[in-house]
């Protein structure tokens, strides 16, 4: 009885010889002046479709996504808040889109002014001394940060420090980044209250310690209360503190990483500064540094001279860790972040963390009252918190995956599941400050409903989802019988 939910693959709409003629030059291509041996013989498998078919296909496909614009999306660690539409509209003004990255500064003052102002704003909200907007996502920001730490040690002639300390709760990008920077990862445990295990930290620091990567609040959703002590321990051992800014939304305007003792920080502008996540990216992983690391910042960054702006040159930054992108990072994303920052302004910055925390603590209190187990019950939630289904999994077989899939049926995107790995059957829930109380309440209601349903009949949860374009997918088959490219 159902309408066809399946959308053909675009190649199934393809018919040889069909095309959207207005989209390419009238003249057929002529490459006869090029050496025959260098030319392509086969026709690449691109769809041969009409413009209407393409518009229809991708419009219909889009409707198969959950998104912030259509659903509550409490995906922990991802800060899925409202992406103001003005940021998109304005970043797409023709002159911004049409600017070649190498257009001379004399004809680019508008764009450069925006980037400069954004650097200043980010510097202030993080308490750092310099900012480079170059890294293209959080992980590249981490890379820049650790690379700067290493460059600093090396510049001082300290060739031995190559250990990066990472809590076991850390995001996977942290250890992966350390390795990309040629470091050795030293993992330390998280204590039952969610804080870093100080004794373990003390045991691991030493003359090989290059630095520690932390996020505060941590990925378990609580504020690291002993941050000053940690800072002291690491600094005294000669290491540096790296701040993974993925959780900056939790503290924006409340406490600044620079003031906590961090030497370097990356920000996920696609989280805290509300640029869209675009179904996977692009993001922007701007880095901020303390005085000591200023010379090492990745290039380019914008400098103001009198009334005008320009990129600093390579020659001016001999100690820079260099370039991380072909040009200057994800300029269009940074533009969106800038617009967002100007809309919020000073007062708005303070409110971000306040209402993110209010929403998280409210949701935590309500879910806890409804009988869900908190992973860190005695603690304040930051902008997010963890519910563990360990008990339900054991008692009735209800797993984090089950609840996640069933939530889709109720019209909610699922929280992050199975991260951080140390908490069993965990749901990392981050409502963000832009959601209304009524939507939080509706989410609680859905969670309770799912639990009641599962208590009555676990099979219903196991079979979920039922209302999506597909039922639960076979991941194992996907990996074993690899089908990653269409073939007719």
């Amino acid at each position, binding site marked *: 009885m159902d309408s066809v939910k399946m959308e053909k693959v675009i190649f199934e709409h393809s018919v040889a010889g069909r095309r959207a003629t207005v989209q390419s030059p009238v003249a057929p291509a002529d490459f006869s002046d090029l050496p025959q041996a260098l030319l392509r013989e086969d026709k690449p498998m691109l769809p041969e479709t009409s413009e209407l078919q393409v518009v229809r296909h991708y419009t219909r496909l889009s409707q198969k996504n959950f998104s912030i614009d259509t659903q509550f999306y409490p995906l922990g660690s991802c800060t899925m808040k409202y992406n103001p539409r003005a940021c998109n509209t304005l970043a797409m003004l023709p002159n911004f889109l049409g600017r070649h990255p190498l257009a001379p500064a004399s004809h680019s003052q508008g764009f450069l002014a925006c980037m400069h102002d954004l650097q200043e704003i980010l510097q202030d909200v993080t308490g750092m001394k310099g900012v480079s907007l170059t890294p293209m996502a959080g992980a590249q920001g981490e890379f820049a940060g650790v690379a700067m730490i290493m460059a600093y040690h090396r510049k001082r002639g300290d060739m031995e420090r190559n250990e990066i300390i990472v809590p076991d709760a850390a995001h996977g990008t942290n250890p992966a980044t350390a390795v990309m920077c040629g470091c050795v990862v030293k993992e330390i445990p998280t204590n039952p209250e969610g804080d870093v295990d100080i004794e373990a930290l003390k045991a691991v620091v030493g003359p090989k310690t290059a630095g520690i990567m932390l996020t505060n609040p941590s990925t378990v959703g609580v504020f690291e209360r002993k941050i000053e002590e940690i800072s002291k321990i690491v600094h005294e051992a000669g290491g540096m503190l790296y701040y993974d800014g993925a959780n900056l939304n939790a503290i924006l305007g409340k406490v600044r990483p620079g003031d906590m003792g961090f030497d370097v920080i990356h920000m996920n502008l696609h989280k805290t500064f509300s640029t869209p996540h675009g179904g996977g990216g692009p993001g922007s992983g701007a880095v901020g540094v303390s005085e000591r690391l200023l010379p090492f910042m990745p290039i380019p960054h914008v400098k103001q001279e009198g009334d005008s702006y320009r990129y600093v040159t390579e020659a001016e930054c001999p100690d820079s860790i260099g370039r991380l992108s072909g040009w200057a990072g994800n300029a269009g994303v940074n533009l969106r972040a800038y617009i967002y920052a100007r809309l919020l302004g000073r007062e708005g910055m303070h409110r971000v963390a306040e209402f993110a925390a209010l929403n998280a603590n409210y949701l935590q209190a309500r879910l806890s009252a409804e009988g869900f187990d908190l992973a860190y019950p005695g603690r304040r939630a930051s902008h997010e918190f963890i519910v563990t289904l360990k008990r339900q999994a054991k008692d009735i077989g209800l797993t984090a995956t089950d609840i996640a899939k069933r939530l889709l049926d109720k019209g909610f995107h699922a929280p992050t599941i199975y991260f951080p790995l140390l908490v069993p059957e965990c749901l990392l829930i981050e409502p963000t400050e832009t959601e209304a109380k009524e939507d939080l309440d509706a989410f609680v209601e859905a969670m309770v409903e799912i639990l009641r349903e599962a208590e009555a009949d676990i099979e219903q949860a196991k079979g979920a989802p039922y209302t999506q374009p597909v039922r639960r997918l076979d*991941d194992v088959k996907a990996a074993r019988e690899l089908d990653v490219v269409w073939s007719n």
Partner: protein
Amino acid sequence: MPFIPHTDSEIRSMLDTIGVDSIEAVFDEIPDNLRCGKLEGVPEGLTEYEVTRLLHERAADDQALRCFAGAGAYDHHIPAAVWEITTRGEYYSAYTPYQAEASQGTLQLIYEYQSMMASLTGMDISNASLYDGASAMAEAVLMAVRGNRKSKSRKLLVAGTVNPTYCKVTNAIVHNQNISWDEVPFDNASGTTVTAALEAHAGEDYAALVIQQPNFFGSLEAVDEMTNWAHANGMLVVAVVNPMSLAALKAPGQWGEKGADIACGEGQPLGVPMSSGGPYYGFMCCKQPLARQMPGRIVGRTVDLDGNPGFALTLQAREQHIRRSKATSNICTNQGLCVTASTIYMSLLGPEGLARVAGASHSNINKLLTALDAVDGVSLAHAGPHFHEALITLSKPAAVVIEQMANLGFLAGVAVSDDYPQYENALLVCTTETKNDADIAAYAAALDEVLNGEAL
């Protein structure tokens, strides 16, 4: 309160539920001495109207120039449909498709993208994107070092005609892992790599040879010979290619006898605006044996509980969120929205449309060079053929010419002397299908004026 929906009475009731009496109280685990001040460096908030006006003014400051620059960022026409669809909320404001069932739109689109890129490059597999072309080359280098079973070397050979910025970015990233390379000098007359230069390295242990096609100067490398040579010497071949050119040029997968092993490059020419250099996206494709060395996300087709087809992220065991320190890369967020645009772009153009765009871009560079031939003080640095870029040498310093041409409304090209001191007064110029005969004539006239005019 911008973007915050809470009313006073809601706040009060929520605080009651939490059991505190102020919002401040939920921050009571933060040591007092750390609490921050007023953020004086952040200006007061603006209304959307005020910001709109500010940004319109800023945009107006960036005078639009008729663009004859390339060097990795290309001024192609982008069909209106591309970004009207790409910025639909369902694509724009979704996260990475971790919950596959609620993300079939994005997942199927990526699967389609992978299929198109694999075919364009002649490879078996494509990932779902990397950050940009430059960093994709870095990832390709890391992957080649990991993936070359025959070589233990942490060294590579890189053609001297590879985009110098890509080399810098690659170096910034890979030198941390003690990976380095030797540069293969190019021939000054042709602007391409000659076999003799490679032969100098025969028998040495390198993990891979990196070739760019069309190369940085817009010239075409003898990719078949280079690929065969590299394979014969136990190296993998990393192809850095402009995907637009692949509508015309031999796919890396078909280079030489066995084909390149990894193809990567900048996706921007396929429907992504120049936008001051980003967001763009890096693409990466490889042959089957290297699949599990690939960085980045990959989408696979599978079935659901009812046996119906569906799409999901796959081979996640390569990635940082599963493998952590042993992952193939630290990349997590990629450039999904640009891939969305590119997929729609490629669908709208199709094989014939893409070939025509490439064809017009190519024939325009020939027209431009012919027009410049008549301008005193301009000469061509390298004999052809050129794809859609070429290096011209000038009778005046490039920086001055660029500035004066800008005042006449043209982005004249890109100066290369920082990276190639031998080309002091040279400009790398580029044409795409967006230039017509009148533009080319106007450019030549302006350049004549700048080089040979009386008063400027």
